[in-house]
């Protein structure tokens, strides 16, 4: 009998070992039309699972718990879904608003904040239970509520976001979840459409759709207020029609340089972080949407709005010039670097594919099928400020 028990124990332990999975090299790929998320392994280039019934994911984004076990998916329809990467399943899901655009996880990992269009504002939830912790309506006078964009986490258990309709930046301090403190910065510019925070959590920059330039808030020095940078970029009269709003997430910073998409222009702007002046406007063959730096900052990869959305351009940061044009397929929507940047994954929506490139040789490594993929998010984001 003892023999059988020990044999059983042995077999069981073997089973447990076989089922073990680490999550540090996993990721989520959003399949917009299926309303599904793929769990993928970035080391093995493998799809591990597909989690469905996640609602309207036409503009979905993802953050990860600090233990990298859970992915939180923010859907267009106000859905907030918590996915368990260890067990390939939906852990919890709530509909928290009518229409939402993105979210962030707090410094301590305990809070999830979501930015909403309808009703306009930010809601904060417990990352564990998804229970509501705080509701921050984006009121800006006369009962009007603004759509909220560009929500990021910041050091000091804070969230920073922009009010699209109101032209304001708000800083939300959640140190005491029962008593949220809001600091408002008004008249920052017309129609901020998205924002980013520097990887050190110091600078918050909102892009403006309604006028030229960008709004900069130095979180180390909030008393000096919001400053306008690049006031001449891009002037309304020279702006081309914008078929897709640029995304500022994934701030591309390399040394002293910051790379941002010019809105309504076929240019990537290079800004000097010391004085916030324009260093160079790099001409590119289309309107940039995502401008993302390889983690080591040597390269910047750019994708484009339609009708130029079949290509990717690679900028060499050393001499600020284009070094490679790639055509992965139809409708290149998003890209994500592996944590140390030796590879990049690219979502090609209309070809139903994910393409993986070697960033050194700029050669394609492999392709994986995915139904209308539109966003790729790796769990390494768990430990990055602002992502």
């Amino acid at each position, binding site marked *: 009998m003892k023999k059988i028990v020990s044999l059983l124990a042995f077999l069981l332990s073997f089973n447990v070992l076989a089922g073990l999975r680490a999550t540090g090299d996993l990721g989520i790929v959003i399949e*917009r*039309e299926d309303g599904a998320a793929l769990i993928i392994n970035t080391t093995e280039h493998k799809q591990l699972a597909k989690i469905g019934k996640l609602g*309207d*994911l*036409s*503009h979905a984004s993802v953050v990860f718990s600090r233990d990298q076990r859970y992915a939180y998916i923010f859907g*267009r*329809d106000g859905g907030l879904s918590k996915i368990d990467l260890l067990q390939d399943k939906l852990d919890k899901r709530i509909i928290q608003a*009518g*229409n939402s*655009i993105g979210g962030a996880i707090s410094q301590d990992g305990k809070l999830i904040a979501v930015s909403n*269009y*309808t009703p306009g504002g930010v809601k904060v939830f417990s990352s564990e239970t998804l229970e509501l912790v705080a509701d921050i309506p984006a009121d800006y006078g006369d009962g009007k509520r603004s*759509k909220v964009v560009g929500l990021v986490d910041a050091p000091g258990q804070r969230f920073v976001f922009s009010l*699209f309709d109101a032209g304001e930046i708000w800083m939300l301090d959640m140190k005491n979840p029962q008593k949220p403190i809001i600091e408002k910065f008004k008249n920052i510019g017309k*129609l901020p*459409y998205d924002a980013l925070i520097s990887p050190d959590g110091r600078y918050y920059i909102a892009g403006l*759709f*309604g006028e030229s330039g960008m709004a900069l808030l130095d979180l180390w020095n909030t008393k000096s207020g919001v400053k306008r940078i690049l006031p001449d970029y891009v002037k309304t009269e020279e702006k081309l*029609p*914008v*078929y*897709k*709003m640029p995304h500022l997430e994934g701030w591309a910073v390399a040394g002293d340089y910051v790379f941002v998409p010019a809105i309504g222009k076929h240019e990537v702007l290079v800004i000097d972080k010391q004085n916030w002046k324009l260093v160079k406007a790099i001409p590119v063959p289309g309107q940039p949407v995502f401008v993302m730096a390889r983690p080591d900052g040597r390269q910047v990869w750019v994708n484009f709005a*339609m*009708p130029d959305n079949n290509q990717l351009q690679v900028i060499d940061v050393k001499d600020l010039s284009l070094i490679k044009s790639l055509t992965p397929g139809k*409708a290149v929507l998003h890209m994500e670097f592996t944590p140390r940047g030796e590879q990049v994954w690219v979502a090609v*929506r*209309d070809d139903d594919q994910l393409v993986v490139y070697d960033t050194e040789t700029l050669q394609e490594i492999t392709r994986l099928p995915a139904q*209308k993929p539109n966003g790729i998010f790796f769990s390494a984001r768990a430990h990055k400020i602002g992502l």
Partner: protein
Amino acid sequence: MKKWLPLLCITTSCLAAEPSPERQTILLNLLKNDCGACHGLTLQGGMGPALLPDSLAGKTDEFLVSTILNGRKGTAMPPWQPFINHDEALWLVGVLRNGKH
């Protein structure tokens, strides 16, 4: 019955030639993905307003076609003229009013 078809078309707004099946596929894809980027995959609105039959009910075809082709100044709506012609815009308006896409 065939004789009456042209007449029927005059009374409704299908004077415009219907796009070819291939173009229809392209247009529906555009509607879902590119319009959907701002108006939502289910067209319930996002940065742009909802495009559901109810929300379009009070607006004329002419106004909607012009909005699609020329965009709306002061908003994020761009002109789609480079990619869509008048008849195709009118067809899309019909699709939106129908609510089945």
